[in-house]
């Protein structure tokens, strides 16, 4: 079992390093054992931290009812965000930086206070949020052809890739996290439409889930952490040359421009 966890971690780490996707790792783990999948993720988290990558936040995945149904789960998952995943707005993205890239529009919360308790409430989370911005997450999968089930994506750092943060920070009370409309356009064509409620009912609820789980897992959210709280609509594939813009009502817009080949 421990051997297989290590083996799954090695496969994913090697895929990331080589840029060649690997086979699904779920067969290496006991069926339905999400904890084992997080153990795989944690091996690589420690590996990256030892290698000097800076941990700057977390992402929440599987926050929509339809995606949960697709993977046969009833809970979201999380992954680590590192400083090198942050793309400055306006910076062209080389598509080769993410394997099999897709984009999602999300609300990013920047945490202003430590959330180090397993008995957190919505009030704690809203009080600890410093500000929110519109964000585009470029997700990717180290597993060939996105052939993922819950264990694969959890083990693969929740299929994280890169992210771009918008530049119109808003505090709680200045926007509506639950009812804000979202539209994402690719080269002017709408590719995803949704609203805050599509993310576990509210991105604040998703963040509360994350904060509790991270406190329990020993990597609590703290001041300065970025939380990508989950997609507000369906994800869309991207190709070299694409320009993606997401607008979230009350939070302005954010762009991700992919370099032409």
């Amino acid at each position, binding site marked *: 079992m421990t051997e297989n966890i290590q083996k799954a971690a090695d496969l994913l780490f090697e895929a990331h390093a080589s840029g060649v996707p690997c086979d699904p790792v779920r067969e290496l783990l006991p069926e339905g054992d999400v904890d084992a999948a997080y153990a795989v993720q944690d091996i690589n988290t420690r590996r990256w931290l030892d290698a000097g990558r800076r941990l700057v936040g977390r992402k929440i995945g599987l926050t929509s009812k339809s995606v949960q149904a697709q993977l046969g789960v009833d809970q979201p998952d999380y992954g680590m965000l590192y400083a090198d995943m942050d793309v400055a707005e306006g910076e062209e993205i080389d598509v080769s930086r993410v394997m099999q890239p897709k984009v999602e529009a999300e609300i990013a919360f920047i945490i202003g206070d430590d959330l180090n308790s397993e008995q957190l409430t919505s009030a704690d989370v809203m009080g600890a949020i410093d500000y929110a911005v519109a964000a585009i997450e470029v997700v990717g999968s180290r597993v060939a052809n996105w052939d993922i089930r819950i264990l694969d994506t959890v083990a693969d750092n929740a299929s994280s890739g890169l992210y771009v943060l918008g530049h119109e920070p808003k505090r709680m009370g200045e926007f*509506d996290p*639950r*009812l*804000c*409309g*979202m*539209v994402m*356009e690719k080269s002017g*064509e*709408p590719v995803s*439409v*949704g*609203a*805050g*409620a*599509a993310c576990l*009912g509210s991105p604040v609820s998703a963040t509360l889930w994350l904060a509790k789980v991270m406190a329990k897992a020993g990597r609590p959210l703290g001041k300065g952490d970025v939380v990508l709280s989950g997609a507000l609509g369906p994800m869309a594939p991207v190709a070299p040359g694409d320009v993606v813009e997401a*607008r*979230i*009502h009350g939070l302005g817009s954010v762009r991700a421009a992919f370099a032409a080949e």
Partner: protein
Amino acid sequence: MKNLAEAAVTVDEAARTATAIPQFEGENSFSVDEAYAVQAMSIARRLDRGEKRVGVKMGLTSRAKMIQVGVDEVIWGRLTDDMRVEEGGSISMADYVHPRVEPEVAFLMGAPLSGDVSNLEAMAAVEAVAPALEIIDSRYKDFKFALGDVVADNSSSSGFVVGDWRAPDIDFSNLGIVLSADGRPVQIGSSAAILGNPVRSLVAAARMVARWGETLEPGWIVLAGGATAAHPLAAGMTVRSETQDLGTVGFSVAD
């Protein structure tokens, strides 16, 4: 020669008696122009029965639906006072064939509007904006139809509910919308799904009614189009839609 007047009787009777009919296929199928002629004649029959014209509805306003039906233009239908359902009121399944509901944005016209107009001219003619629900009900068996069929069938329009009106002085291009059935969310979307911005649908409405010699009249309602996929209605269901900055609108299905 196709008998369009006869077809108008067929679709009107189907709507009046809530009876499913087969598609108009083969030599009986309509061109889009013929279909609008059938629609005009079928609505004329409703007006002859004493109903009053109160506005228009726009359809196929999302990219997804245009691709689904294989068209690149929106469609429209005519609203009468008989289609209006009181906000918070109830409907009976017996009055419909296989009804679905979709959340929309409604415009109330304050000045006449017709022909090719700019977004600015369109908005200048709008007195108020409100959240709305449209009850769509294709009279064709299994909700299956070609473009000509749906246009002839008044673009599937059969009922509508309008919430509280407010001044159109807000940015309503990307308002989040949650459609709930029995208190649970069943569709989540944004007004941006309506051609990217509902005002574009109003501009299209002005252009399209002008082709048939009509004008969007003061006091008329323009339903701009669905903001999410439609949700099937069932007896006993309570439907509610919540729209950012516009509030809620709802109704229930009695039996």
